[in-house]
């Protein structure tokens, strides 16, 4: 798009281009650019108008009426809004929605990062594990709901309750109790959302130069390192001293277990 916009400007000093379209000749150069831009936008805008803007405007309009399609709508002003904001059930629903949104988003990010750190790397089996982990995100919501309904069966012979029973807990009512229902719904949301976040984190981690892992491995950094710092932090820190450590520690002389499960693999060709 930008090329199209700038084109006339570049050609200002050049000889006239051979036989431009008639409408192009008539329109000033700047307008030509806008016309083309809007032309490209037009299909999307038309769809948005029909399926989004019009229904939105109509919905707002309807909210001020008592809607009776065959009797004619009746203007009620702010009554509908007044009723909604004073309705206890509505307010508690809004509050629960906020708690759910915050919990689900936060939970998904934390769990997604944890998962990403676990399965980051280039080994082929990891590719398979990652695909398997990503499945909840692409599974149809109806399937997910049915599956979890079975898992959450509140009897003592329910799937999750059996597991709780092994460790002497439960049976939990899960969705059937005021105390646990919101958390149960949230857990499903996190379970479904975390793999998506995991993919984003993995994409970010993939951008980290693999030589840094190598260097970190050479430095002896690891999840169980003396300082107990997390892998990611060690990786970043060790990148500062990577050139030094590569020289001093040499290839393969330090434990390869850290930083990435595949750190050793990437390093091997250079060492051998």
């Amino acid at each position: 798009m930008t090329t199209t916009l700038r084109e006339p400007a570049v050609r200002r000093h050049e000889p006239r281009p051979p036989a431009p379209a008639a409408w192009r000749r008539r329109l000033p150069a700047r307008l030509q650019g806008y016309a083309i831009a809007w032309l490209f936008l037009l299909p999307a805008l038309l769809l948005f108008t029909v399926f989004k803007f019009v229904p939105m405007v109509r919905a707002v309009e309807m909210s001020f009426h008592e809607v009776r399609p065959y009797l004619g709508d009746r203007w009620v002003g702010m009554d509908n809004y007044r009723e909604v904001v004073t309705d206890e059930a509505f307010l508690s629903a809004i509050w629960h929605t906020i708690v759910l949104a915050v919990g689900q988003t936060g939970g998904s990010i934390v769990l997604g990062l944890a998962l990403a750190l676990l399965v980051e790397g280039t080994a082929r089996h990891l590719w398979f594990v990652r695909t398997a982990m990503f499945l909840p995100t692409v599974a149809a919501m109806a399937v997910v709901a049915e599956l979890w309904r079975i898992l959450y069966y509140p009897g003592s012979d329910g799937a999750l309750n059996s597991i709780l029973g092994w460790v002497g807990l439960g049976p939990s009512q899960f969705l059937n109790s005021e105390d646990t229902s919101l958390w149960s719904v949230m857990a499903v949301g996190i379970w479904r959302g975390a793999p998506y976040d995991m993919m984003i984190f993995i994409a970010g981690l993939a951008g980290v130069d693999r030589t840094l892992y190598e260097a970190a491995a050479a430095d002896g950094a690891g999840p169980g390192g003396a300082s107990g710092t997390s892998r990611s932090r060690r990786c970043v820190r060790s990148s500062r001293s990577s050139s030094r450590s590569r020289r001093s520690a040499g290839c393969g002389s330090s434990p390869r277990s850290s930083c990435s499960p595949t750190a050793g693999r990437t390093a091997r060709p250079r060492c051998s």
Partner: protein
Amino acid sequence: MAHTRGAARLVAILTAASMGLVACGGSDTGAEQDAKAPLQIWIRKPPGSPTEKTAKDLAAAFTSATGVPTTVTALFDDFETKLQQAAAQKQLPDLVINDTAQLGTLVKQGLVREVDKAGVAGGDQLTPAAWEAAKGADGKTYAVPFSAQSFALFIRSDWRQKVGLPTPTSWADLDALATAFTTKDPDGNGKADTFGYAVPGSTKRGYTSWYFTSFLWSAGGDYFNESGGKFAPAIASPQSVAAVDWFKKQFCVDKSVAPGAVTMETTQAHPVFETGKAGIYFTGPYNMGRFDKNLGKDKYEVVPAPAGPGGKAAALAEGENVYLMAGSKNEAGQKKFAEFAISGQGQTIGMAGDTDGSIVRLPVNSTVDLASVRKDTRWQVFDKIYKDTGRYTPNVPEWTPFRQASAETLNAIVANCASDIQAELTKLDETFGEELSKQGVAAS
């Protein structure tokens, strides 16, 4: 800068255009009539079910009798929502066969036409009780009754014999049976995995209230006290509180209700009974075909629910109406279909013999002999319950808000064993009072 101006201009144009579209969507006048226009018929039945087939048979018989073409659409989940969407687009079907309890909402929104009761051919053959269920709060008739039904206890007879208890004739008997089903391993598999009651206790469509209504009335409790078309809330009365207390005890003390009840709709509650997780299920006759197939006819019995302490037996009566929807191009055809549906022929097709495809549970036409159409004598039990103890929901202008509010309160009470019944019901009583005033029928 010019760019922004252009964008602003475009947005302005689009907004104006959409406003224009909105303006065009105003109210229209009566649709042009055509006595041969095809009739769209919606029925609240699961798509692909035997009941859908019966509805299609009924429509086909109507078409061959009158020459008016029909299209039947069976819809089940979110039926009312879909109807609202159709109404918003002014694309309502011509006819809807749905619960009697929906009448008030449909009337209030003007989605149904008034019916001239005297002008309905064959209308004089219908039972007066059925016509009552087609009456709006203003005393006018807004539908043609099509089917009636009531509810009874389905009890696992094989389990009952195993635990050696009689058919319950009081609530104490009923609870004793439920407790025995829960604790005495009636299926003999050596595991404590059976329960007394299957309860559809979800708040969706007000199921909790729908289920509990019969028990509330049986114990002498009630939603309202009515006099002369005016209503006063009665849900916090001592009898109502006692009935709810009994209901909660099943969940919290006896623990005789199959787990998951408070989130169960009927579609999830049916399997609880038919797969042998619970042995007592208060439900309608339409489940007999299904349970005969999946559980076995010899394994359960159908008995009237006993009266509660201090009360007399009462069972929720409901049914289905044929609603003549607004905006139809073929109003004459609408009326003809309703007349066909209540005729002896229409009712018999709808009853579908002893199969599980019945869309007419109990015939509303008094000239139709139930016993000659259905050999299964259990239908007589339902017929007797309907005639002796059947009671329709209160005739307030719109019942739905009351059903929903009471379902939410009842659901909250049984879901939380620490709940205070009196306080919760007093709060519900207040909600009822406000809603009654809003609907203009509060007793002063």
